[in-house]
C-alpha cells in the first residue's frame, strides 16, 4: 500500500525527526518543550544525575511546575520542592511557583507551546496542550531526564482516530458531557497508542477552553496524544500569547484513519462517569438522586474561568447556597484563572455561598494536596479520573461530571440534572 496523505501526528513527527514518518515507524525526535512537575521531576533529577548529565539541552525549552503538592503540607513534599528549585537554579530552568497553576494549563495560557510543537511532559494530562494544534504526550521520569539532557525522545508514530463533531449544540450541553460521551463510547483503552484528531463543522461552537477538555480526556481512552486543527478560535486565543512564526498543521484530505467516530451534538445530553472508572458513563438521568457530600470544581479538566462562571451561574439559579452537609471545594487551574475570577467577583460570590477556595494547582484531584474526602463519602467532581482512592480515600466514591452538574449537586446535596 502506498500512503501519501498524512495525519497531523505524522506531519509533526516527520518535521521533528527530519524524515518522512508514518504510523508504526519508530523515530527519534527533537522536542520543543519539556515539562516536569513536583510529582515527576524529583525522580527525573536523580536519573539525570545517574545518566551523567552535566548540562541541559536548552533551559528555555524546559519548565517545572510545583502543582501536585500545592501548597506542600508535609516536610517531605517541601523537600521535593526544594530539590526541583535547586536543580532549576543550577541549570537556568524556570520553576513555576506554588499557586502558579497546573503545568499544562500554564504553558497553554502563557503561549509557551505553539501550533506544530512537539511537547513532552511528565504528567499524563500533558495531552491537553493538543487543543493548540500540536503533538503533546505524557512521559515518565526516565524519559523526562533523557529529554532534558539530549533534547530528544523516541516515539512510535501513532495511528489516528478521527472524532468528527456535527450538528447544533443543545442548551445545557457542556464540553465535558461531549468528552464523557466519547470516553463511554470508545472505552478506557479504545484509543490505546493512538492519536485522536477532533474535527468537524461543530467544533466552531466550542471555545479554546472547552477544546482543552476534549484533548484532556483523550488519555482516559488510552490515547498517546490528541489534537485540534487551527481555526479563528485558536488564532484569537494565540494572539498576544504565543510569539508569531508558527504554521498550522492539518491532516491531508486523503488520510486513512484507523477509526472514525462521529458525534452528533443534538443527540447528546449531560453525562456522569460512575465510580470507579472514567469510561463507566451514564446519562445523568440514570444517576439523579444519588446523595453527595463533597463537590470538587477544579483541575486541568474543569478548573478554568468558563467552568467556574458556569458553576456560579448554576448555584445562583438553584438557590444561591451550598446545601447543608455538602463541602464545595473550588480550585482554579492557574494563578491567571484565579486572578480573573477575583477581579470579576466570582470567587467572593462562591465563598459567600459556602465554597472553600484553594490554591491553584492539581488540588484534591489525586489526593496529593488540599481536601481529602471522608470515609464512605460520595464525591462529584469536574476532574478526569475517579479511580478508587484517587482522591486519597479508598472508601470514597467519585462521580465525574460537568461544572454545571457539579454545581447543581452542591446546591441540592444530590446528583441533579443541571438543565
Amino acid at each position, binding site marked *: 500500500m502506498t500512503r501519501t496523505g498524512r495525519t497531523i501526528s505524522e506531519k509533526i513527527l516527520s518535521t521533528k525527526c527530519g524524515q518522512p514518518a508514518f504510523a508504526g515507524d*519508530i523515530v527519534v525526535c527533537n522536542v520543543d518543550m519539556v515539562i516536569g512537575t513536583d510529582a515527576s521531576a524529583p525522580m527525573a533529577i536523580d536519573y539525570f544525575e545517574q*545518566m551523567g548529565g552535566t548540562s541541559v539541552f536548552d533551559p528555555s525549552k524546559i519548565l517545572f511546575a510545583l502543582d501536585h503538592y500545592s501548597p506542600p503540607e508535609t516536610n517531605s513534599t517541601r523537600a521535593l520542592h526544594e530539590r526541583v528549585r535547586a536543580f532549576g537554579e543550577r541549570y537556568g530552568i524556570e520553576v513555576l511557583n506554588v499557586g502558579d497553576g497546573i503545568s499544562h494549563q500554564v504553558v497553554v495560557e502563557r503561549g509557551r507551546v505553539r501550533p506544530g510543537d512537539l511537547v513532552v511532559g511528565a504528567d499524563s494530562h500533558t495531552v491537553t496542550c493538543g487543543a493548540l494544534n500540536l503533538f503533546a504526550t505524557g512521559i515518565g521520569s526516565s524519559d523526562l531526564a533523557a529529554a532534558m539532557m539530549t533534547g530528544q525522545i523516541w516515539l512510535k508514530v501513532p495511528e489516528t482516530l478521527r472524532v468528527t463533531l456535527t450538528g447544533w449544540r443543545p442548551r445545557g450541553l457542556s464540553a465535558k458531557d461531549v468528552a464523557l460521551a466519547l470516553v463511554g463510547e470508545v472505552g478506557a483503552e479504545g484509543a490505546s497508542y493512538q492519536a485522536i484528531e477532533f474535527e468537524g463543522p461543530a467544533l466552531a461552537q466550542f471555545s479554546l477552553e472547552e477544546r482543552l477538555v476534549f484533548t484532556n480526556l483523550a488519555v482516559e481512552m488510552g490515547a498517546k496524544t490528541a489534537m485540534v486543527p487551527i481555526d479563528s478560535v485558536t488564532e484569537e486565543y494565540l494572539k498576544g500569547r504565543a510569539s508569531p512564526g508558527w504554521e498550522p498543521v492539518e491532516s491531508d484530505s486523503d488520510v486513512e484513519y484507523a477509526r472514525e467516530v462521529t458525534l452528533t451534538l443534538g443527540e447528546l445530553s449531560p453525562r456522569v462517569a460512575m465510580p470507579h472508572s472514567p469510561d463507566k458513563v451514564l446519562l445523568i438521568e440514570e444517576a439523579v438522586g444519588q446523595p453527595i457530600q463533597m463537590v470538587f470544581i477544579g483541575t486541568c479538566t474543569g478548573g478554568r474561568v468558563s467552568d467556574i462562571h458556569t458553576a456560579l451561574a448554576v448555584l445562583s439559579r438553584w438557590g444561591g447556597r451550598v446545601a447543608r452537609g455538602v463541602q464545595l471545594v473550588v480550585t482554579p487551574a492557574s494563578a491567571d484563572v484565579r486572578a480573573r475570577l477575583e477581579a470579576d467577583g466570582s470567587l467572593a460570590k462562591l465563598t459567600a455561598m459556602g465554597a472553600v477556595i484553594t490554591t491553584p494547582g492539581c488540588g484534591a484531584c489525586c489526593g496529593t494536596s488540599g481536601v481529602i474526602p471522608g470515609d464512605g463519602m460520595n464525591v462529584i467532581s469536574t476532574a478526569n479520573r475517579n479511580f478508587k482512592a484517587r482522591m486519597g480515600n479508598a472508601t470514597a466514591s467519585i462521580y465525574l461530571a460537568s461544572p454545571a452538574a457539579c454545581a447543581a449537586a452542591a446546591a441540592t446535596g444530590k446528583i441533579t440534572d443541571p438543565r
Partner: protein
Amino acid sequence: MTIDGRARKFGDHVNTDYIISSTRKRDTLDVSVLKQYLFESTHPAFAASVRPGDLIVAGRNFGCGSAMEIATTVILGAGIPAVLAESFSRTFFRNAINNGLIPIECDTKGIAEGQALSIEFIATGASVKNVTTGRTVAGAPLPGIMLSILSAGGLVPYIRANGGFQT
C-alpha cells in the same frame, strides 16, 4: 535467559494509582518503604504475601491512568522482575522498559493465581510456559530500540553508555 516465578493474578484496567497510591509518594520515593503499600487499595493482602521472583499476570490495559514512573519501580522494589498482560497502557510500558522491568504482552487468560511460570527470552521476545498446565504462549516482539534499552538495564544505563539516543 530464563525467569521462573509464581503468577500473581490481576484483572483488567489496573491503573497506576492502584499499583501505588499518589498519596504515598508524597512521603518518600524509597521503594523499599513504598513496596509495603503495593496494590493497597484493591488487594490489601498483596504486599504482605509477595515474594521476590513473583510475576504479575494481568488482563487488558495494565498501568493505565497517571504516567507516574514510581508504579514501575515499586513493582521492581518488591522483587517482581516482569509483568505479563494482555495489553499495557503506553506510559506504563515505556516506564517499565526504561527501568528494566520486563513487560510481556501475551495471552494471560490461561494463567491462574499461584501457577508456576517459566519465561524464556529469545531473540525478539519472550516465550511463556505455564509449568502447572504445560501450555506455552508467545510474547509480542519488542521493537529494536526498546530491546536495546531493556537489555542495557533501563534508560539510565542506556544513556550513560551511549550519551544519547542511537538513531
